[in-house]
């Protein structure tokens, strides 16, 4: 008797645990529930997203959307294991340079037949290219930001340098000499936050005509490192090395890590994403004057690689059509503007970009908007194996080159030789 009771207790406890804390998927009762995983992280942007979801839910009682909070730092690993484990959300927020492996792996739905014509024509072709892999389109690019120079206005004024504008930007040479002029007395002309050196280098290199990834006639991609590819890396290297016009300490930092030094006048300029203005407004000490300058231009003008934020639909989702409808709603011009303002970024939609709120001189919105025309698909992002090349080969190689521990020859050797080995594993 007692034995039975003891067993019953054990069984009950285990059963309780297994059922008690499992929540499981929502039950279907004619209503559709979509999970929308957003990576918004700044308060304004999270609020904008949540508000839009609320409006949608109010208008569509049969298609309810559940807001799920994701995080940029781990999104790739998280999505990979979610897809693999069959737990992916229906609507997925990500960036275009992160999509290649998912698109080729068959996890994302091809959107060509799902999206309405309005949305398709409202976004320029050069933006759609960022999410086209093979024949399919696997995401809707909706927000993007140019890399800009955020400058300490007082220091620039005092030094009497020419202030560049989108119409008349600095050349890379001019940029280098200006930073030299701004340096000295414990101050650096520029602080490159290059914790993620690869995308910054590749994207800026586009202005000088650098491509690095070349697709052969057989469709296979190889890495080359030509003179045009070397312009930007060499500028950074020389600034941090022989010129002493760039702080060596910030090379491994993230953008926001450089802000305290920037506010303290240690650096005259910091190359940052356009959206960093939000952090600057929030954190700058009173009376601090800052302004946004266009990044230097090269042979190809103000061209810049960019990996827009994207919205995709999971191939596994049972409600792809509804998911596409929701994306269409989120990206109506008016809503796109709200998302852009929340993230302090630029919308891809041509209609949204015309909004007066994005054209004011307040917080230098207008400068960024003027740069939107030069933004195009980052060269590497459609290449399979690019993430591994970036993390394992290019990041260490560039970091060592910038910090001066290897030379240009060694950099080229590593990027090309080691790089092509990695790419080959993906293109067998």
């Amino acid at each position, binding site marked *: 008797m007692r034995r039975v009771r003891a067993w019953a207790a054990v069984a009950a406890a285990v059963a309780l645990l297994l059922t008690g804390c499992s929540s499981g998927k929502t039950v279907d009762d004619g209503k559709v529930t979509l999970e929308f995983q957003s990576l918004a992280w700044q308060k304004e942007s999270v609020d904008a997203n949540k508000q839009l979801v609320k409006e949608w839910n109010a208008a569509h009682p049969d298609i309810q959307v559940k807001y799920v909070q994701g995080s940029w730092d781990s999104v790739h690993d998280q999505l990979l294991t979610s897809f693999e484990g069959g737990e992916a959300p229906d609507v997925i927020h990500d960036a275009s340079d992160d999509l290649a492996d998912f698109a080729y792996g068959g996890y994302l739905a091809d959107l060509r037949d799902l999206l309405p014509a309005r949305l398709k024509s409202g976004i320029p072709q050069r933006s759609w290219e960022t999410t086209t892999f093979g024949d399919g389109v696997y995401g809707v690019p909706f927000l993007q930001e140019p890399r800009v120079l955020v400058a300490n206005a007082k220091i620039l004024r005092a030094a009497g340098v020419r202030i560049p504008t989108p119409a008349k930007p600095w050349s890379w040479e001019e940029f280098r000499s200006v930073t030299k002029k701004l340096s000295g007395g414990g101050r650096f002309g520029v602080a490159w936050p290059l*914790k993620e050196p690869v995308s910054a280098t590749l994207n800026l290199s586009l202005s000088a005509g650098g491509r690095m990834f070349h697709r052969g006639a057989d469709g296979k991609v190889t890495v080359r490192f030509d003179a045009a590819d070397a312009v930007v890396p060499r500028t950074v290297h020389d600034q941090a090395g022989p010129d002493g016009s760039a702080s060596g300490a910030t090379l*491994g930092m993230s953008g926001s890590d450089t802000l305290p030094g920037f506010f303290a006048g240690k650096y005259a300029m910091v190359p940052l994403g356009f959206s960093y203005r939000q952090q600057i407004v929030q954190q700058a000490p009173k009376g601090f004057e800052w302004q946004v300058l266009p990044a230097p231009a090269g042979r190809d003008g103000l061209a810049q690689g960019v990996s827009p934020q994207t919205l995709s639909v999971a191939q596994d989702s049972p409600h792809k059509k509804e998911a596409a409808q929701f994306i269409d709603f989120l990206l109506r011009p008016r809503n796109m503007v709200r998302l852009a303002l929340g993230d302090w970024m630029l919308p891809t939609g041509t209609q949204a970009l015309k909004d007066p709120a994005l054209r004011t001189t307040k917080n230098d919105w207008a400068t960024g908007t003027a740069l939107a025309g030069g933004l195009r698909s980052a060269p590497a992002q459609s290449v399979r194996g690019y993430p591994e090349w970036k993390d394992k080969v290019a990041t260490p190689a560039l970091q060592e080159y910038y910090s001066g521990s290897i030379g240009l020859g060694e950099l080229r050797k590593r990027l090309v030789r080691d790089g092509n080995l990695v790419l080959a594993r993906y293109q067998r």
Partner: protein
Amino acid sequence: MTLATATKRPVKRVSEPPGRGRLVDHGAWFLVLPALIPILVLSVGPLLYGIALSFTDAQAGRTAPTRWVGALNFQDLLHDTLFWESFRIGLLWAVGVTVPQFLLALGLALLLNQNLRFRWLARALAIIPWAMPEVVVGIMWRLVYHPDAGILNETLRDLGLGDGRDWLTGLATALPAVIVVGVWAGMPQTTVALLAGLQNTPPELHEAAALDGAGAWGRFRAVTWPALKPVALAITALNFIWNFNAFALVYVLTNGGPGGRTRLPMLFAYEEAFRYGQFGYAAAMGCGMVAVISVILAFHLVGRLKGGDEQ
């Protein structure tokens, strides 16, 4: 994870009842099964499965079916200089953490074994690193190392020792900086284990040695160390293994950067599996790590047996 594994060995063998030959005593099965089933399904099974996976090209994605590829993964692995670089870093890290950890812990244990002022406080504080989730330890040290808002650079500036550095992102400083954190985090377990060992040495021997005129060092060598040696060997072996398999600390502190200088093999294999989706290849890396650990463990056991003979 645990220290008791290290220091606690089965108490004296009481005379065992018969039942040697059988797998398990009749009637004891139902006592064993509740633990045995989860162990088989979630520990032994996965281990065998993992070894099998290393001979396949298993990948994330649904476009390619999994095939047996024989030893191809291991061939690739042999030529993967990046992995072996990571392996070298892993060994450096494991030794770099285990040795100072042991020495510092030994010092602390010896001090705690004395009747010193503030000993109670030290005992309480020594537990803190142990009680903390590894993730929190990582976050905390990131705050300490932070180039501008961190206390380390500020202290250096106050002491006039230069302008400080970016510890976790500098190519030269990242690994040493992370090693310090590893030492800090693992010291308590080691200290407690060694302290237990110390309290186990017979005090009469100390007195006898003191009467013989032995100095502090002489007493340590003649009395303390022999008694401590088994515990010390066990805890260093386990520390080495745990450190070699460390993950959370570097994941939080540097995520393998800068330039892969702190990419420990665990992190490397994790990324291969769950970032790039190369399951088979990552499993092969795991097998390689097990092999190396087994060899080291074997050497260690041999050394331990020999040490036992000498006594």
